[in-house]
């Protein structure tokens, strides 16, 4: 019978439709909500997981921002939730624009402002949340999107203007934030991610791992299509992948000052996942983009709106002693692992400084940069499991962090900035060393 055509005999287009249907990760209920929202100009995504304590204020700020800066535009607030048990999605959906309008007297949106929510799974998986936001953005043909962290307790309505405005006006494809951070906040970014991204790709992006950012719908669609979403490792570090995709794709990137970034307490156990999501992604990107980064000799500033990265100096408690202990323990216990990763010179130097008393301990910038570059090379060569390589970097990073804390204990904000700049220059200066290792060592 004519109707009974085997799958193999069906036209390619039809087979592709079937594949898409099988792979869909959006629920019918979510699709129903998207149908109701329809095409939008602006989409604001809130990835959440048990954020009931803070998300209400964030939604209010977003609503007021839309009210003040995008009253004519078709807009939706989209909550991608990891299965919160504290009522987070309800708080997002029930936040009334009427209240925001009352606060912003004389301001109101011309259109309906939708707030919708979907659960993408069970558990916190920011990558999946971003994927959901990107998929919704594509389906709704959003012109500009922002992702806002649900714990951004000091979020100001104006952030919508500064983040989204230039993207919406097609002045850039990716808008990343800069912050006023405590000088000891963002250690991973300041000691590793920022300097290395800058040395590799030649762009001075202060927050490559941003929790608030905005992007054009066009770029979002491109990233959604290109990124491999199949496994968790690909979804992890999605934010850094996003930044790197914009850099390597030659897209227009800008930065905008977003005010004070509240310090979020991290548990020691958070470091390895954070390394996977940042430096792991950066190492991964080096594989695919060798021809690009190997030719970069120096770095360029990226357009900045509203002020540079700043540092605040109020007291912040960090257990330095514990950092040093974990460094020393790591060097001692992972000696055999390091032998496969590091050059003998670097390893010997690490062993030497691991013997130093706390008062004498320093992890010099040059040694730190060489360490990182040798890890990158080992990752490239896959001398051992790549995930083990990333894990092995954790204790060494703690040693470097200890040094950063000690060196900057009495530093002013500008002195901290100078120290970070020196480190960046060291990463740039030693880039030939990276290339030599990358190309030569077996």
């Amino acid at each position, binding site marked *: 019978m004519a109707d009974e055509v085997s799958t193999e005999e069906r036209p390619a287009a039809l087979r592709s439709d079937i594949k898409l249907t099988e792979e869909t990760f959006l629920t019918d209920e979510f699709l*129903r909500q998207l149908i*109701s*929202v*329809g095409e939008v100009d602006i989409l604001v995504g809130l990835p959440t997981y048990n954020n009931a304590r803070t998300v209400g204020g964030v939604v209010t700020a977003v609503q007021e921002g839309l009210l003040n800066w995008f*009253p004519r535009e078709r807009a939706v607030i989209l909550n991608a939730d990891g299965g919160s048990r504290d009522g987070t999605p309800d708080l997002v959906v029930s936040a009334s624009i009427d209240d925001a309008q009352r606060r912003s007297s004389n301001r*109101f949106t*011309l259109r*309906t402002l*939708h707030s919708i929510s979907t659960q993408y799974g069970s558990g916190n998986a920011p990558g999946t949340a971003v994927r959901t936001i990107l998929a919704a953005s594509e389906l709704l043909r959003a012109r500009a999107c922002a992702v806002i962290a649900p714990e951004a307790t000091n979020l100001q309505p104006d952030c919508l203007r500064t983040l989204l405005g230039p993207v919406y006006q097609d002045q850039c494809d990716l808008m990343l934030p800069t912050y006023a951070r405590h000088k000891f906040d963002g250690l991973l970014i300041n000691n590793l991610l920022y300097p290395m991204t800058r040395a590799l790709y030649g762009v001075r992006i202060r927050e490559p791992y941003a929790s608030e950012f905005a992007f054009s719908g066009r770029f979002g669609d491109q990233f959604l299509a290109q990124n491999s979403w199949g496994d968790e490792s690909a979804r992890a570090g999605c934010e850094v992948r996003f930044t790197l995709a914009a850099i390597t794709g030659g897209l227009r990137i800008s930065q905008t000052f977003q005010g004070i970034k509240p310090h979020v307490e991290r548990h020691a156990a958070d470091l390895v996942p954070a390394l996977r999501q940042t430096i792991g992604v950066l190492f991964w990107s080096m594989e695919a983009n060798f021809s690009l980064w190997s030719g970069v000799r120096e770095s360029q500033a990226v357009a900045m709106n509203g002020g540079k990265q700043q540092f605040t100096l109020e007291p912040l408690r960090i257990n330095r002693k514990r950092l040093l202990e974990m460094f020393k323990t790591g060097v001692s216990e992972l000696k055999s692992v390091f032998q496969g990763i590091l050059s003998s010179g670097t390893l010997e130097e690490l062993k030497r400084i691991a013997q130093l008393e706390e008062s004498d301990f320093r992890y010099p910038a040059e040694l730190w940069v060489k360490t990182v570059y040798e890890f990158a090379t080992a990752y490239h060569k896959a001398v051992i499991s790549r995930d083990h390589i990333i894990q092995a970097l954790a204790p060494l990073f703690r040693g470097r962090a200890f040094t950063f804390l000690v060196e900057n204990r009495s530093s002013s904000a500008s002195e901290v900035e100078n120290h970070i700049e020196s480190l960046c220059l060291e990463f740039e200066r030693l880039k030939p060393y990276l290339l030599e290792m990358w190309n030569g060592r077996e």
Partner: protein
Amino acid sequence: MPVTQDVLWYKDAVIYQVHVRTFYDSNGDGIGDFAGLEQKIEYLQELGINTIWLMPFFPSPLRDDGYDIADYKSVHSSYGKLEDFRRFLHTAHERGVRVVIEMVLNHTSDQHPWFQQSRSSRENAYRDWYVWNETDTAYKGTRIIFLDTEMSNWAWDPISKAYYWHRFFSHQPDLNYDNPQVLEEMWNVMRFWLDMGVDGFRLDAVPYLVEREGTNCENLPETHAIIKEFRRRLDEQFPGRMLLAEANQWPADLRHYFSDGDEFHMAFHFPLMPRMFMGVKLEDRKPITEILQQTPEIPSSCQWCLFLRNHDELTLEMVTDMERDYMYDVYAGSEKMRLNLGIRRRLAPLLDNDRRCIELMNGMLMSLPGTPILYYGDEIGMGDNVNLGDRNGVRTPMQWSGGWNGGFSAADPESLYAPLILNPVYGYPAINVLSQRRTPHSLLSWMRKIIAVRRSARVFGNGSIEFLYPANHRILAYVRRLENETVLVVNNLSSAAQAVELDLRRFKGNILIEMFGRNIFPRIGDLPYLLTLGPYQFYWFRLRRI
């Protein structure tokens, strides 16, 4: 079919607004007249309307298109004689069409004999018929309406060497209703026309009748008292006649003009109109539902008058600054299209001549609570001429055919009161009654159909409204109910196809009957009722439990 005796006739009316000058010229002088209008009543009857609203036809210097009246009890010589009006009125009534005329209570022309007398000397008996002052400083809290042309509400009269008050053009002095003689004389004027048989008055500029220091001189209690007095006399002496208020105000302020059913029978819903245009451009029901939510209940004998376009600019007084900016941006890209606080364009050009959108707007006009008013020519999609001054661009001759002068007049084209529309899109060779009459799917044929369907269901003119709020904000859906009659209206405000799920569970068991094709749609069950609508499509469903 003569007009019926129903005293609430205006609630079921479909009104056609026309200026006699623009409609049909019977004597070849280039200006429409009452004899011509009488000849075209058959056309209007065929269209399905049952009420004509005539713009001012009185003797006038015509500096404000007849709203500057120089004689209230006669007909401008260009339009014929009083006898011609009587014949027209009789023919209209014979064909079941009522006639509502304009009555400008607030002011006269400065050429009116009353004003000429008044300005002639301070001792003249008519002196106190107008509002005079030695200075121009009184009533400072009063806004200026015609911002583009007037600097003040006071004008210096060099003859009488004093200032006189005018809310509109300076050649339109306001009458002084603090003088009881003025009220009496204006009632005499109204009685003159009521005795002749007119069915009602559209009372122009009613909020401004009385001035009081320290106020904005609008909607004052004294003004309401005057209206109440006119209404009392009307009900006593001419039951079944109607008063329609022209008061460009917010719904809450307008509500007072209905009072307890003892002021106006009807009032224009000015704030709704721009929001309908906003709704389709934004593709969002919010502006429409918001303004209707703010619209107060009115007495059961009263009615809102709804309109899309009229002889004036699309007024943007009753919108916020932000909304006005938006409307200018999307509907009046050229400065020429803007006048005062509004947009001087006709319906079809405003909607980019999008037939589906024109139908949608008319569909909402006919199905929202109120009595619809059609502006002449909009039933065939006539265009405008923004190169003509003031609001004359939307007052060009009616386009009857593709022949000489569009079938409007046998005169030389140069002697027409205004040039015909000639461009290839809206010009009379392309847009005219004759060609659309011959085409069953023309806009004119479609308008006849929708008017017939509207008039087939009393619920539209008399029923309650309840909005549904489906998640899809591009869909404006509402239920109209009157006694046992229930109609569901679903409008797609978007230029793209839409799907919508309606919660109709309380109507479970009913089937839907689409009112234009009378086709049956599936029975309502427990699940959300799924509908898909094409671009700008709308449905009217009658609910039937069978």
